[in-house]
């Protein structure tokens, strides 16, 4: 836990000195304009919440994945990756703490999106189930950080991971149903969507904004957390295996 907290604190300091980490947040108001324009031009005001939530999920996803990769790349560039790996503290736990710090800051996207909605389109969102909403946001942030560890593992082993990092956006926005519910996808895709925590998060967040009662809240929250934990487990296992290998071959700074 101390390693996790240290990583969390460290990343806040890094962000203060290098705001580039938060760059994707600059695009979020524009995404909000795009999505709101689409649904309102079509006269579908009932989809306003969908249009407002999607940019927030995009922000969380982009920041988590980008930062997880950049942490490794930057540490390697600065020559601090080797000492960090050699330290007795768990490196995967440190990375998750750092990613969660950025994910926490990414929640600023809520403010951006709400400002665009109210300022440009005159729409506001009513939180019909605030407790469910807050719990869903927390579980999503945790799951994002856990999943991002897989990307960190890839960055240790290969520099070309950036090519794939760029490709992990829209496929997961589709599978995760961040704007269009999974039920609109072809049937053969839907089982894959169920394995993506984003699909559970997006549905739960949307339901928590709707007037109707939120069904199966505990189960759906648990699914987000379990899938995030599975991502963390896979990431941790991969990362530890890769670290053992690059320590042996002396390729930590060179892979």
């Amino acid at each position: 836990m101390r390693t996790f907290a240290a990583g969390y604190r460290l990343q806040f300091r890094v962000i203060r000195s290098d705001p580039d980490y938060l760059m994707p947040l600059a695009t979020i108001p524009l995404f909000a304009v795009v999505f709101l324009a689409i649904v309102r031009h079509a006269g579908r005001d009932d989809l306003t919440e969908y249009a407002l939530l999607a940019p927030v999920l995009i922000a969380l996803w982009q920041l988590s994945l980008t930062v997880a990769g950049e942490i490794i790349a930057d540490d390697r560039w600065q020559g601090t990756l080797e000492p960090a790996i050699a330290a007795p503290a768990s490196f995967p736990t440190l990375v998750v703490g750092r990613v969660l710090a950025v994910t926490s800051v990414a929640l600023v996207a809520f403010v951006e999106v709400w400002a665009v909605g109210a300022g440009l389109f005159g729409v506001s969102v009513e939180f019909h189930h605030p407790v469910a909403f807050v719990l869903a946001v927390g579980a999503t942030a945790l799951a994002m950080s856990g999943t991002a560890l897989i990307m960190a593992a890839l960055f240790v082993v290969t520099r070309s991971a950036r090519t794939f990092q760029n490709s992990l956006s829209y496929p997961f926005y589709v599978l995760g149903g961040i704007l269009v519910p999974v039920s609109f996808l072809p049937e053969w895709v839907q089982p894959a969507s169920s394995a993506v925590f984003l699909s559970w998060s997006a549905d739960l967040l949307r339901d928590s904004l709707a007037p109707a009662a939120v069904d199966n809240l505990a189960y759906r929250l648990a699914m987000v957390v379990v899938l995030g934990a599975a991502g963390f487990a896979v990431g941790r296992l991969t990362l530890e295996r890769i670290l053992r290998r690059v320590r042996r071959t002396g390729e930590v700074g060179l892979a």
Partner: protein
Amino acid sequence: MTALATTVNVMHHAFRAGLADYRAIFTWKSWLAGWMVRVIAQVAFFALIGERLGDDQKTFYLLVGNSILIAAVTGIFSLNMTTGERWAGTLPLLVASPSSPILVFSARGSYLAADGALSALAALFIAGPLFGMELPWPRVLAVVPLTAVVGLASYCFGTFLAGIVFRFRSINGLVVLTVTVLLMAACGVNVPLSYYPEALEWFSRVLPVTNGLLAIRGVLDGADTATILGNAALEAAVAVGWMTLALASFNRLASRGRRDGSLDYGA
């Protein structure tokens, strides 16, 4: 060697260097499994919004707009070139050489315009039928050169922006990210230009994508040839305009960098 032959020689070598860059980034496998999967998913994401709206015409509108946007996004990536040269330490050498840096940059990144057009067309011709959109044959062939013009115009715009951020490399990534989403928001990609205030409509007309996309929509909707050619000519004029501005900004900023020795140390 005549001046023209020298220019062609420089551009030829710059183009080959660009291709080598590209091969270092992508193999054909990673291009297909990484880049193209993302491209198709991006177009499908927006087409699915149309399905959610329950309107086929909206689905096709979003599908066409976001397919063609891919050409622009790739073209805008030319912004990364100056930063890449700077990190590699080759920018001062490039500026010190007797050739104009703009010649090198315009040739070196031209593969981006070609790649963008190819990706956009692949997206349209794959995602279109997947969502049940009819592509009128043989009229749809006219979309190919029009998409190339959009890719070129975006590349020229990206090269102009590269000149602007020449001395401020720290904002390079920010400019790439925001400009690509700005084009998505303002150029009639997702909603007609008439949805926005008139001033924004005029602004979007000088951006890449807008006019070319209108021409492409005209081809697919069976508009008259004069309208299509008019919009295509406007897109080409936008390309020429941005490249002219790129020439001006690059040379001025390069001269300033030579004078104050800041080429390696810009913020």
